[in-house]
Every structure is written in C-alpha cells, then in structure tokens.
C-alpha cells in the first residue's frame, strides 16, 4: 500500500478510536456524578414554582423523566443505548428548551456561529503569531523584538475573556465604535447572499475575535521565536548564511518551513484550551454560539443538551486535530516517503 494511503487510514482509525474513547469517558463521567441530574432538575422546578411534591409523586415523575431522557435501566444497558443513539441514529434525545425539540437540532443551529468565529480567529492568530515570531526570532537584537517578546510573555497568560472585557469596555462603551452584543444586526434580513447582512456579521465578529486573537498571537509568537532560535543554530543554516543567501530568503525558505511542523502540532494540542476560553468570550458578548447555548442549558439543568454540547465540543476539537493531521503530509515530505 502507498505510504500516504496507509497514513490517512491510520489517522482516520485513530480519530474514530479517540472519539469513541472520549465519548465513553464523557458518558461515564455524567453517570458517576453524585446526585442524579433528574432529581436535581425536579428540585429546581419545585423551587421555581414554590411547590412541594410528595415523595411518591416525585419518584413517579423522576421515573417518567428518566424514560423520556433515555437514562433508565442498568448502566451497561444505558451505555449500549447511548452508543447506538450517538453513533448510528445521531440522536441526543429531547431538550428541555422547546420540549421535545431534539438537543442535536439546538446544537446544529448554534454550531456554525461558533465554527465561523473560532475558526477565523484561530487561523488569524496562528498565522500572525507564526510570522511575527519568525521575524523577531531571526532579528533578535533590537528594541522592537525585545519589547514584543516581553509584552507577549506577559499577555500570553491572560485569559481571553479578560481581553474580551477590555475590548468591550474600550470599543463598546468608551468609544462607541462596535456593537457589544449578538452576532448580526437584527434589523437586517437574515440572508447569506445579502452583502449588508454579511457585512454586519463581520462587524459583530470583530471584538470577540480580537479578544481571542490577542492572546493566541502571544502564545504562538513565543513558541515560534524559541523554535526559530534553535533552528538558526543548525549547521545547514550556518552554511546557507556562509553561502551569502539573504536573511529574508533564509527565513522564508528554510527557517519558517522547519518551524511550521511542530507549530502546527502545537496548534492541535492547544485547541481544547482555546475552546474553553472561547465559550466564555461568547457568553460575554452574548454571541449566539455553543457557549451561550451551554449557559442556557446549564441554567435549565437540561441534561441531554449539556451532554450533547460536551460531546459536540469534543468532536469539534478532535475533528480539527484530525484535519490538521491530514494536512501534515502537504508540509512535511518525510511523511509521504516513510512507511
């Protein structure tokens, strides 16, 4: 078999295996939570309507709810049903929001917003961090480089929802330049072919994206710079230098190409972390993505929706990792040759 084909097949199998592993982990995690979700929900209802239900009725209600949610029966039984529902029927069960609208439908409505904003800001911040990191790694001894690296060292650890709060304050309230809430102007007709709608989508995305980009750039910049510094010490680059190649040529042709591979793998590893911060940024801006949906699911203690969003987040991260894996042979010729 061709090495490239076997590479793709191995990666695909690894992807499916890790999806199964992570889903199983999530399933057991949700079933080992002390205090079951159904009685927690019923208690919340009791408090909300200040009613007390006697024990027998409560038990009957709980049993009915469990049957509706598909979480009755023994643990192995539930696990098999869960696997069948998720992997074969693509069904996450009904949600409490507009009951019995399926949880998956809610998620699929919000998913495009998250993917668009998260995708754009991650790609922008990676490219920007990579290029600037490469440049200040090559030209290390000047004031601008020193300033940039120290600034990044400080900012890289600040969570993105803090930069979001700063942006909100500065551009949303102080200089009233950008909209503070939502994903598009509600007065414009929602139509993907309408240029005014697309323009408003872009405008509403600037602030949340900026918050994620600022922190992301700093992280990529630091690690790219350290990689470039190490690569520059290698013999073949000393030779390229001695041959009289221009520094910019060396940077583009040799250094950045070699730094790209570990940086792309690093991007895959950090995606889960990025998503964590991203949900909170969404919540701060009331952006209609998965983060905001998760918040309403948590408020309602909507079991299927909470589990569904956790599963979908895992899928998004693992799928992105898988796509990155598939792109690697384009960048690294060694993968194509080895078998």
């Amino acid at each position, binding site marked *: 078999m061709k090495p490239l084909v076997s590479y793709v097949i191995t990666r695909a199998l690894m992807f499916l295996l*890790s999806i199964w*592993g*992570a889903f199983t*982990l*999530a399933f057991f*995690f*949700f079933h080992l*939570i*002390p*205090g*079951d*979700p159904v009685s*927690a929900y019923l208690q919340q209802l009791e408090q909300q309507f200040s009613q007390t239900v006697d024990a027998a009725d409560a038990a009957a209600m709980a049993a009915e709810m469990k049957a509706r949610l598909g979480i009755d029966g023994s643990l192995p039984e539930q696990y098999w049903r869960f696997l069948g529902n998720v992997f074969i029927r693509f069904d996450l069960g009904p949600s409490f929001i507009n009951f019995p609208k399926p949880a998956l439908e809610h998620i699929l409505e919000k998913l495009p917003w998250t993917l668009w904003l998260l995708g754009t800001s991650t790609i922008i911040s990676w490219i920007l961090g990579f290029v600037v990191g490469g440049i200040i790694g090559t030209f*290390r001894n000047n004031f601008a480089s*020193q300033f940039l*690296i120290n600034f990044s*060292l*400080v900012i*890289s*650890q*600040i*969570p993105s*929802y*803090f930069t979001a*709060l700063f942006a*909100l*304050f500065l551009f*949303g*309230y102080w200089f009233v330049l950008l909209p503070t809430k939502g994903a598009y102007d509600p007065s414009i007709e929602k139509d993907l072919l309408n240029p005014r709608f697309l323009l408003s989508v872009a405008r509403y995305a600037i602030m949340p994206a900026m918050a994620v980009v600022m922190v992301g750039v700093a992280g990529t910049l630091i690690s790219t*710079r*350290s990689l470039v*510094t*190490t690569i520059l010490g290698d013999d073949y680059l000393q030779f390229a230098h001695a041959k009289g190649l221009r520094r910019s040529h060396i940077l583009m042709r040799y250094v950045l190409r070699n730094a790209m591979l570990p940086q792309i793998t690093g991007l*895959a*590893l950090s*995606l*889960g*972390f990025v*998503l*964590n911060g991203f*949900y*909170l940024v969404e*919540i*701060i801006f009331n952006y209609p993505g998965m983060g905001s949906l*998760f*918040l309403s699911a*948590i*408020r309602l*203690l909507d079991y299927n929706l*909470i*589990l569904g*969003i*956790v599963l979908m*987040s*895992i899928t998004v*991260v*693992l799928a992105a*990792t898988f796509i990155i894996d598939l792109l690697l042979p384009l960048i690294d010729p060694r993968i194509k040759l080895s078998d």
Partner: protein
Amino acid sequence: MFVVDAWKRSGYFRVGGIMLAVLLAIAVLQPWLSQLALQNPDVSPMSMGTFEPYADPSLRHPAGTDKLGRDMLALLFLGIRVSMLIALIAGCTATGIGISLGFIAGYKGGWVDAVLRTGTDMVLVIPSLPLLIALAAYLPTISIPVMSLLLAAFAWPFTTRIIRSQVLTLKQRPFVDLARTSDQGDMSIIFLEILPNLLPFLGVSVAVGMSSAMLAEIGLQLIGLGPASINTLGLMVQQSVQSGVLAIGKWWILFAPVSCLIAFFVALNLINIGLESAFNPRLRSVTGD
C-alpha cells in the same frame, strides 16, 4: 535551594517573585487589612448595605463601593485571600496527582506508560471547561475544598507530561544506574535520587497548576456556578459583569478584581519563565535572560 539560584539567575523570576509575595502578603494579612479599610471592627466585608451603593473612589473608599454597598477594597483583600487559598490547594493537589502519574509512567515504561500517556493527552485535548461546569451544576453544595479538588481534577495533565519526560531522561543517568547496582529499592531511587533533581520542575508545575485552577475558577464563576457565599475574585468579576457596571460607567468595580487576577497570572507566568530559564540551559537563549 533552587529558589535562591533562580532568584540570582533570572530577572523574570525576581519580578514574578516580588509580585507573588505582595499578593501572598495581602492574603495572609487580610483580616487586619480589611479592618483597616472598613474602619469598624464589627463589620464584615461581605455584609451588605454597610455603605452607600456605587460610591465613587474617594479617601474613605479608595476603590469605591459596589452595588450592594460594600467597600471594594476590603472585598478585594478577601477575594485575594480566598482565591489564593483555592488556587494553592488545587495547584498542590494537581501537582501531587501529576507527579504520581508522571513517575509511574516514566519509571515503569512499557504498556503502563503507553496507557497513561494516551490518557493524559486525551484529557489535555478534550475541552475540560464544559465537563467541569457540568459537574459543578449537579453538585448540591460547593465549599472551598470541594471547589479546589474539582479544579485540580482538570489541572494535572501538564505536570504529568513534564515529570514523565524528566524521569525518562533522569533514569538513564549514571548515578541512577549506580544506585540500582548498589541494590537500592525503587522507592529509594525515586525519592532520594530522582525527585531531588526535579524540584525546579515541581515549582513550575505548582505555578502552572495554580494558574490553570484560577482560570477554571473564573470560568465556573462567570457561568454563575460558584458558591455565592465564598467571595473569590472570580465571583467579584461575575457580579460586576452581571450588574452591567461597564454600561453605567462604573468601570473600576470590574477592573479592580480583573487587575488583581491579571497580576496573579503574570506573576505565576514570570516565575515559570524564570525557573525554566534558570534550570533548563537549552531554553536560556529563548528568553535572552
């Protein structure tokens, strides 16, 4: 002692160390400091309606008062103390878990290592915050220890990774071979030969564990899941976001806890960079330190 070495060798460590020491001093001296801010020994910083709500910063209230008429400075001191305590417990617990798993994986090798490494990578890649939030949503009560343990449960993979890779290289070293041939047991090799060499890395992992616990804590609080009776810095951020202080122009109410948290993150990060550049010569060129 590695702290003294790092202090001598790295400017980053000095700056970060001083910042953390100031925060730590505030946390320890909090009962006295908040009495000073409140000027009344009978009032607790948490009790509502003590002062006029939303007062601007003045000599009497250097950081103003919040919506519930509480002195922001006294609240801030209390927040630093509680957040620091939670982060410290969580960071140390996470480091403990990380060290144990890292040592088992690195020292045992073979299939144990393979399983632990895959598991660690999995936990690292999976977005942990939704899981953490879901867990917190179903817990009946959350106290400071429960909160810390929750946060620790998601903060250990980083430590496991660094400890494992360090143990892998250290166990190849001649002095470990010598210990093994002179018939020392595994436990004594681990604790007497390998562990002392890892102290700077333990420093790094406590710092990383603390900052990721802090990060997750704010995440929980922003969703509104932290206990409202425990005044952490995260809760202060959440309350001020909730009451919309930016929209009414009272930005300092939000920026007081946020800047404390940023100081905390930056201090821990500088300590990390300092420790790494002082003890990992390969990285010294990176920071140019």
